[in-house]
């Protein structure tokens, strides 16, 4: 009996910490709160999903560029089904995704797409860049490594 309770406790603790570290599930208001939190880095929010082939293709470029530049802070915002977070946690594990992944579970899309950027049609992949001064830049569509580097250089030029 005692060991059962302990087991339940351990399971709860493990699941809880796992979700906390590997995958947070948020609604748009929570995500928007993070957009508005000040940071001295260039934050990159990449909108993707496990079923989106062009998204998966560009993820390694984002992780590489992020790993090589300490001025960047990369987040993957998953548009996967919030009822099935195991698809996302499984993907993170299988592909050894290093950057934080946040599952945006908010299907009333028209309410918030324009708040990310008015030019966004809703297609993914799409990427939001937030500069330390709070200004934003947005890109809809896939990016390769050179396009991403060019974009970041352009943003850094703007800052200096």
């Amino acid at each position, binding site marked *: 009996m005692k060991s059962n309770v302990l087991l339940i406790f351990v399971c709860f603790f493990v699941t809880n910490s796992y979700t906390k570290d590997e995958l947070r599930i948020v609604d748009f208001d929570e995500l928007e709160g993070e957009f508005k939190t000040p940071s001295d880095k260039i934050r990159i929010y990449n909108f993707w999903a496990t079923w989106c082939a062009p998204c998966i293709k560009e993820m390694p470029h984002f992780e590489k560029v992020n790993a090589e530049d300490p001025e960047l802070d990369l987040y993957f915002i998953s548009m996967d089904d919030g009822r099935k977070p195991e698809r996302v946690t499984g993907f993170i594990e299988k592909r050894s995704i290093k950057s934080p992944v946040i599952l945006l579970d908010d*299907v009333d899309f028209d309410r918030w*797409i324009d708040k990310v950027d008015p030019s966004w049609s809703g297609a993914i992949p799409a990427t939001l860049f937030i500069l330390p001064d709070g200004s934003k830049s947005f890109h809809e569509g896939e990016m390769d490594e050179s396009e991403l580097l060019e974009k970041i250089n*352009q943003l850094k030029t703007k800052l200096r």
Partner: protein
Amino acid sequence: MKNSKGFYFSIVLSGLFALSAMAQESTGYKVGDKAADFSLKDVRGEMVSLSNYEDAKGFLVIFSCNTCPYVVAYEDRMIELHEKYAEKGYPVIAINSNDDKVSPGDSFEKMQERAKAKNFPFPYVYDKSQEVIKTYGATRTPHVYILNKSGEDYVVEYIGAIDNNYQVPSAVTEPYVEKALAELMDGKKVSRNSTKAIGCTIKWTR
């Protein structure tokens, strides 16, 4: 900024970016534009055009495909929309514009399989050259254009999503397309004529 050449270059560059962004936004139809007719091959082998439908008061043109999970989530609702509104003069025409080399699951043969499996009551046509989607300006699947017949013209009256919950039909609080159709059938203007949704990118021919 030490390098003035670099500075001016960046101004010119950002100007170009702004121009290209504007150009992107201005392509395709806006609400109020007249839509062009097309002639595309249906999964049953016939060519489908808007002008084939003599009695139609308008159309639900839906840019769709086989492979997008959002489309799959909406397929039954697309069937319901057709069954409810075709007899009222607004049939569904589903168009797949995805390149079949970039996305083999969206080939004409796979479209035929999907249409058969789901028993689509509406035409499911292939825009292989991607000319129709470029003319309309759809960017994702599913992407709905409601056309309303006005004289000999087909006027775009709504562009956007089907409703506001792809996951659970019973949890929908904003049935955008049905509301727009109700307003059109009442002879009114569509009050919410543009909505956005997360969708799958179009697989453009490279």
